[in-house]
């Protein structure tokens, strides 16, 4: 299971890659693997303001529907519209081509509520056992 080193994590298996005042958000390798073949994603609308851990998108695999929550608060400034026709990009490249939204961050201090790659790696180990 891949754990990217340059992002922070939630316990709900989202990641956030902070680049100054903005950040990319997606779901983790564990999440995409657990979901299986992803068939649909309902993306947020650009411009929408979200609280930390508020529902941002919903995602469906052949098996089930799930919600995705934003790791930090902010305004959605861009979404990965390629996912509308090719949601399987999340299965193939969850940390890169399968990013879901780009947000303008409200409060950088919120990252204290997130997990480092090391902490997230430990969470995955505990789930494995």
């Amino acid at each position, binding site marked *: 299971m891949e754990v990217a080193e340059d992002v922070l994590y939630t316990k709900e298996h989202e990641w956030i890659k902070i680049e100054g005042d903005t950040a990319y958000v997606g779901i983790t390798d564990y999440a995409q693997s657990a979901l299986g073949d992803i068939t649909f994603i309902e993306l947020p609308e650009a411009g929408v303001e979200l609280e930390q851990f508020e529902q941002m998108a919903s995602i469906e695999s052949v098996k*089930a529907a799930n919600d995705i929550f934003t790791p930090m608060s902010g305004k959605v400034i861009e979404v990965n519209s390629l996912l*509308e026709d090719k949601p399987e990009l999340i299965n193939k490249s969850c940390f890169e081509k399968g990013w879901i939204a780009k947000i303008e961050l409200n409060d950088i201090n919120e990252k204290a509520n997130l997990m480092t790659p090391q902490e997230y790696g430990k969470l995955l180990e505990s789930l494995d056992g």
Partner: protein
Amino acid sequence: MIVESIEKQTPLYQEHLHCKARMVPFAGWSMPVQYEGILAEYEQTRKGVSVFDTSHMGEFTIAGKARESGLDRIVTQRIVDLPLNTCRYGMMLNSQGGIIDDLIVYRVAEEQWMIVVNAADIEQKAEYFKKNLTVAAKFKNISQQTGKLDIQGPLSRQVLAELVPMIDQLEYFSFNEFDLLGHRVIISRTGYTGELGYEIYFPWDELIVLWKKLLANKMVKPAGLGARDVLRLEMGYSLYGQDLDLTISPLEAGLNGFIDFEKDFIGKDALLAQKQSGVKRKMVFFTSEGRQSPRHHYKIFTENAPIGVVTSGTFSPSLRKGIGMGLVDRTIDLKEKKLSVGEQNNRMIVYLTQRPFYKNGSLRN
């Protein structure tokens, strides 16, 4: 407290793990939901050939005359005139007309039958048979000795012919006994995928040999319950426990074609009364507008009024959109109505259609 896993295992449990299957509880069994991935296994079955472990299903044998044994009265379909070596799909009902199970009857000899039922509550169904068969019948529940593999896909005949050269003689919904790896076994040309395919009834303790032999052919890959569910739903086939159950009348479920009202069967009086008064619901089939899928238990709406419930839904790989079936209030005229499914404040538009959703299957090739 120690929680023990009480799920039963088929003889292939270790083989599934070896094939990297994701195992899930299903009807009291631990079964593979997927190996490589549901969509890959779906494609493999639609275009090539897959093998499914269906050993969890139940098999009964009955010796006796069709009518005198009581068997004809248990099944909604007429079996008196069932030709030798053919199968017929039907149901067993309770006296209120509720569906206990859907099943397939095999006529093995003039007075010898095999019944194949779903995996849940096999013991209770065996009891029901024993209770309703007459003393003239000999009943056996052979589920624990009988393993089963389904080999399905347009290339299944070609692959199976390497082990059973005479297999090409089998017509759709017929069966015979064949020599296979040193055993005399029943193989029927049946399945649950909409593709050309076979169901092989094989000794439980030896099933692993057949599994390995089939997978030794590089054309064959294992497929799990996930792909099986997508394949069957694209055909509009009902799944017991979702689209059929004790509270659903076969008249509502759209299975009228598998009931013979010219003969006697358990539940007939209840169904006749329902016909008289009119059933409350009917099964409808629909596609969604985009890639979002209807799901089991979603509500069905016309405008803002809830009129029913989705019984099965999934993403259709062949249509590249969501598909589903569900029960709706029969009294509502659905023509010209906008339909949607989901929750009150989060719904997707759906369009009524007819089954099957997938029309290019190799089923009758």
